[in-house]
Each structure stands twice: as C-alpha cells, then as structure tokens.
C-alpha cells in the first residue's frame, strides 16, 4: 500500500474558490459593461479592454520580476481592470487608462502585498489618482456626440433631469455607472450566488437617502431623491466597491457602521462639496477607517459574557 496522507482535521473542503468568486463578480459586472458599450459605442469597449489587459499584464510582470507566484489565474486583476474601466469616460485617451491600471495593480495592490493586503480598493484609488492628475479629461463627458454635463451635475446646478433615463442609463457619465437597472441585475446575481450580502449597500443607500432628505434642500422630494440615487457612481459603488471583501469590515456590526459612514460621507461630499460626485472619495476614505471599525466591533463570542456584565452579575 502507498503512504497514507496525514494532516490535521478537517479533512474535507467545499468546492468554493477565490477564482470562482472573482468570476462571479466579473459575470455580475457584465450587464453594466455591455450596456456601457451599447450606450457609448465601441470606444467604451476599447477602454474596458485596455484597462483589463493592462491590469493583468502588470500583475504578471510584477510577480514575474519579483519572483513571486503568478496569481493572475485568480481573476482578481480582471475585476480591478473591469471596475477601473467602468469608472472612466469613454472619451479618455487610452494611455491614461494604462497609467491608471498600472497604478491600481502595482502601487495600490502589489506594493502592499498583493491580493488581500491592499487597504484601499485598487480601482477606486486609481480612479481618484487619475481624477487629481487629469481632472479635465476625467470629467469631460460627451453623449451622442454632444459635450455636456452628467445628470448629477445638472441636478446640482438646479436644472431638471429625466429620472427614467437615469434609471435606464441613457445619459452621459462614465462607462459603467449610468445604468442603474443593469447594475442592479448584476448585484442581484451576486446576492443570489451569496458572493455578497446586501447589508452594506442597503445601509449605505438608506443612510444616504435620509441624509439627502434632511439636508438636500429639496425637502421631501421623491423625484430629487430618485435622481440622487440613480445618478453618479452611487449604485456601482454601493454594490460593487463598498462590498469589496478586502477593503470592507468582516463582521456584521462593522459592516453596519461602515455603511452608515459611507452614507453620511457621500451625502456630505455631494451636497456640501464642490463636485457633484462623492462616491469614490467616500468609499476610499471609509476603506481607511476599516481597521479602526473592526477594532471596536469585535463580536461577542458564543457563551461569553462581556466583563462589565459579569461584574454586575457577581
């Protein structure tokens, strides 16, 4: 007989894998990507393709030259590439896309230790980096050949917007964020596949809604609220970036606090800030708070009575 394998229990594993989770996220992003390509044309496809390819290649090259195991097979670089591409206007020069992708993978992800170690969402950090570096190009939007503002910017300057078009996504904006319905379809897939729980997005959107109703200056105006919810990167951010495993709290209490902070920050940035947008900065800022949040929200272990209480009892 051959040698028997010996290891510490448990001796069985389920069939989940990191790759399968990342593949599910890619599948969930497809509706919004496809809509973006239909909405903005083949130029959007070029942006997405360059972004994904640059992310994967930079991960490969970095790991190759650093003599680390090649991990592009886990598809996490593909997710980063897709998210980054979806967060750019389709008119962006492709070399900017490449700079953003390299920044996301090398600086934000690999230099901090690779998958699971980055304290900020790589795609969002890269987007903010590009927003600062190429402010004009990152915020100039054309739609149907006409340069114009996004619905959210129009809303901020007091003009009226078409909420139905915002929900469907036939408006100006970055490639992947305009269609609320396409994003929700993808989000539903992730929830059904149990890749994400709806906890963070639901709390995020609820707190944001309350903030807008209280401080938005429009009173109890449901149309205004709907436009704020469907506009900008809120839906994409809430379902696909705020739920990023690596950069969000792991425990339930932490997730609730994280969602509340996100809602308040997004409201603050959007209503009181200069820009109509606020989701990216809100998420990045909250990412940095995650270790602190987790530190103060260690869940009570089963059967353990917290010390204060046990003193009362005795």
């Amino acid at each position, binding site marked *: 007989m051959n040698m*028997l394998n010996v290891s510490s229990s*448990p*001796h*069985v594993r389920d069939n989940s894998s990191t790759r399968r989770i990342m593949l599910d996220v890619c599948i969930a992003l497809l509706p919004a990507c496809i809509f973006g390509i239909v909405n903005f044309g083949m130029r959007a496809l070029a942006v997405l393709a360059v972004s994904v390819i640059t992310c994967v290649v930079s991960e490969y090259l970095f790991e190759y030259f650093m003599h680390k195991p090649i991990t592009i097979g886990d598809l996490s670089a593909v997710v980063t590439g897709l998210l980054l591409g979806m967060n750019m206007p389709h008119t962006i020069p492709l070399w900017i896309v490449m700079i953003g992708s390299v920044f996301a993978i090398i600086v934000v992800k690999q230099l901090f230790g690779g998958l*699971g170690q980055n304290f900020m969402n790589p795609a969002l950090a890269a987007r903010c980096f590009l927003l600062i570096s190429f402010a004009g190009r990152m915020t100039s939007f054309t739609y149907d050949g006409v340069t114009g503002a996004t619905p959210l910017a129009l809303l901020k300057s007091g003009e009226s917007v078409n909420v139905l078009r915002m929900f469907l996504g036939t408006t100006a904006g970055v490639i992947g964020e305009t269609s609320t319905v396409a994003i929700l379809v993808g989000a539903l897939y992730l929830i059904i596949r149990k890749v994400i729980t709806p906890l963070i997005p639901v709390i995020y959107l609820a707190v944001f809604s309350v903030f807008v109703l209280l401080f938005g200056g429009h009173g109890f105006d449901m149309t205004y609220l709907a436009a704020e919810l469907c506009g900008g990167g809120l839906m994409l951010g809430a379902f696909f970036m705020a739920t990023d495993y690596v950069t969000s709290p792991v425990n339930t209490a932490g997730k609730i606090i994280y969602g509340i902070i996100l809602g308040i920050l997004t409201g603050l940035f959007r209503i009181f800030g200069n820009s109509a947008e606020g989701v990216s900065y809100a998420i990045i800022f909250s990412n940095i708070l995650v270790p602190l949040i987790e530190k103060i929200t260690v869940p009570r272990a089963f059967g353990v009575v917290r010390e204060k209480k046990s003193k009362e009892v005795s």
Partner: protein
Amino acid sequence: MSVLTFRGGTHPYDGKALSRDAAIEELKPGEELVFPLSQHIGAPAVPIVEIGERVLAGQKIAAKAGFVSANIHSSVSGTVVKIEPRTVATGGKVNSIIIKNDNLYEQAPPINDKNPEDMTDDEIRAVIEEAGIVGMGGAGFPTNVKLTPKNPEKIDTIIVNGAECEPYLTSDYRRMLEYTDELVKGLKIALRLFPGARGVFGVEDNKPEAIKALKNATSGEDNIEVAVLKIKYPQGGERCMIKAVTGREINSKMLPADAGCIVHNIDTIASIYQAVYEGRPLTRRIVTVTGDAVNSTHNYYVYLGTNMRVLIDAAGGFKTEPAKVISGGPMMGFAMYDLDVPMVKGSSSVLALSRDDVSGSAESPCIRCGRCASACPEHLLPMKLAQAARHNDADTFKKLYGMECVECGCCSYVCPAKRQVTQSVKSMKRMIMAQARKEAKK
C-alpha cells in the same frame, strides 16, 4: 415541536447513505487485542494484571487512577502477553495491555446483580464508575464524574446527543433504530439521579426513522421528549446542542452543568443501560466502517481492543488505494499513518477516502470574504485568529476570544482560499495552553 438549531455552522456532504442501511453486525476481534491505558480524559489507568495472567471477558485489567480517570476491562478471555507502548488512532504511542484472545469468551462475573429498581443513587453511580464508562463521542470524559455535578439540584435537562452531525458516521443512528428501548431505559437511569430534570433526545432531522422510533418508545414518558434539530454541522457539538435544546450558552470555561445540563453520547447511554441492567462493563461499541475506498460499508459491534485491520478486512478490504484513512469523521477525526491501531472507547468510525481534499488544494491569500466568520458556531473571526496565530500574537488571539474555538473545522471547510484556518487556530491554542501550564508550574 419546531425544528431547533443554532447560529453558524455549515453543510458538508454527509455521506451517510453509504452505511445508513447497514444493520449492526457483531465482529469477532481476531487474535491480539490492545487496550491502551488512556482512553479517557484524565489520569491513565493503572494495570492490575500481570504478564502471563489469564483474564476473563469483562474482567477489570486496569484501575482508574484518580477522580478523573476510568477503569479498563478486557473484552475477551485470554492471556496478558505484554504491557508496552502501542500506536493509537490519534498518532501517539500509549502504554497498553496486550491480550491474546483464547476465543472462549469466558465471562467474568457481572459487575452488578442487583435489581436496578432497588438500587440507591450512589449504588448506580458506583456501577457506572466501575464499568469504566466515559463519553464515547470522542472526548472521553468519565461519565460518573459528569453525573456527580457540584450543584445537582440545578440540573434540569439531561440531553442524549443523537445529532451525529459528523459526515459519514452512522453508528449512533443504527443504535437509535435497533436499541431504542435500551436507550430510553439508560436515560431513565440518568434521570433517576436528577429527579427534577427532563430528558431530551436531540436528533437531527435527517434521521426521521430514528426520530419516529424514539418518539414511539417515549410516548408514555412524561419527562422525556425528542427534540428535532435542523441538520447542520456541528449540531452535535456540546455547546451547539445545549443552545438548540435549551437556548442557553456556555463558554470554554464552563461545564454543561453550569447551564443546568448534562449531555451524553448515544453509545454512552447504551453503556449505562448495559452496566446497570446487565452488569456488563464497557467492553464493546459500535463502529462504522465506510468511505468510498472500502469494498463494503458496515456498522460493526466490535470488541474494544480489536485491531483496525480486522474491521477493514471484514469489510472486504480496500476497493481502491485509499489516500486517507480517518478514525472518526472527516471534520474532526484523525488521519492515520498506521492502520495497526486498536478500537478504543471513543472510536466511532473507520473512514477510508480515495481522494484527499487537503493535499489537492493549495493555500492562496485570505481575501477577507468572511465566510469563516459566518460559519463559526462560536461567533469568532477565524481569519483574524489565524492571522494572530501566524504572527504568534497571543494577546490579540486571546482578545479575539481565540480560546473559545471548539476546533469543529467549519472555517477551514468553507474557506475559498483553502487556508488551514482551523489548524492555525488549533496550534495557537495549544501553544497558549502549554505556556499557561509552564507558568503555573513556576
């Protein structure tokens, strides 16, 4: 009654269909029987027989040494040939009494010949103690100690653990089906010691026949009920069982008695019946032989001390080369490097698998998906505990309640990055406990 459960846990492939329908068969033990002196928690028993001495089946061959310890009896008649260290299923070597079977099965006098109805509580406890009965779910805590809690008046629930949540195992299931009345009588003995308590059979709802049999057998009993538990691993863990049945929680520093409960394994209750009603000490138990690498699957009634190879040979040997042979279930059992090990009081199964999930999967970085935290029945954050363990950071580990881990294996099972989460936490626990012992000695 509604279906009871706990928060956390997971649903591994249960494999019970392989051996569920195999009726209990008696298995003769072969020539050489090995009786490790430590088959229980506490001090090893002390041999009371000499090499060359003839012993009878049911004769005490090693006596308990201390309050938490247990007697050991020979399961066959024969001659003591050696007393030497032998390999046991958990991997180590344990000093053992080796007996050569004379195949006569000549019985020693019974340890109890009184009518159970006429016995006092102390006499019953004494018989259980004499019979060497320990918790047969694996931990091996002496049963008479369990039945002698500090505050006996506070015990209001005696739970018989029929969850059998470990995948593949069916020995308790067969016992519930085929020895239903013995179990009810065994539980009634335990209940006699605690007049204020109710008795509860806790059974997972994937065993409807066992639930039906127990319900029929207890229909006339006012103080015994059958609790139907939702199928989920580790429902049979003591803490999860108490939570599901009573809603109470205990932690690592508490005993079930602190929650008013005593929890017994199915085979333990059957052994109590046999000791008190039939005067037989604990010398046999039911062991499941199963897995996809054995030729046929069985539930054997084995003589303790039987070599594991006897069970495997009786099952027709291996169908395919096994990659892993496990004593116990796949979640908490022990993988063995050597099949020459004896069946002991805590042996529940011999599981031979043709494929090893562990060696076939490489670890990748933790992506903080949180699945381990959702699966943890102790509501811990296993990914953070494993990280603290890797950094050898005992303070953080303890602050995150790492010592509460019950080592059920759920976190490793569900991990998509295939990380050895349970294993890291386990070793850190061992290190902290060893450190604490060292400091206590100073």
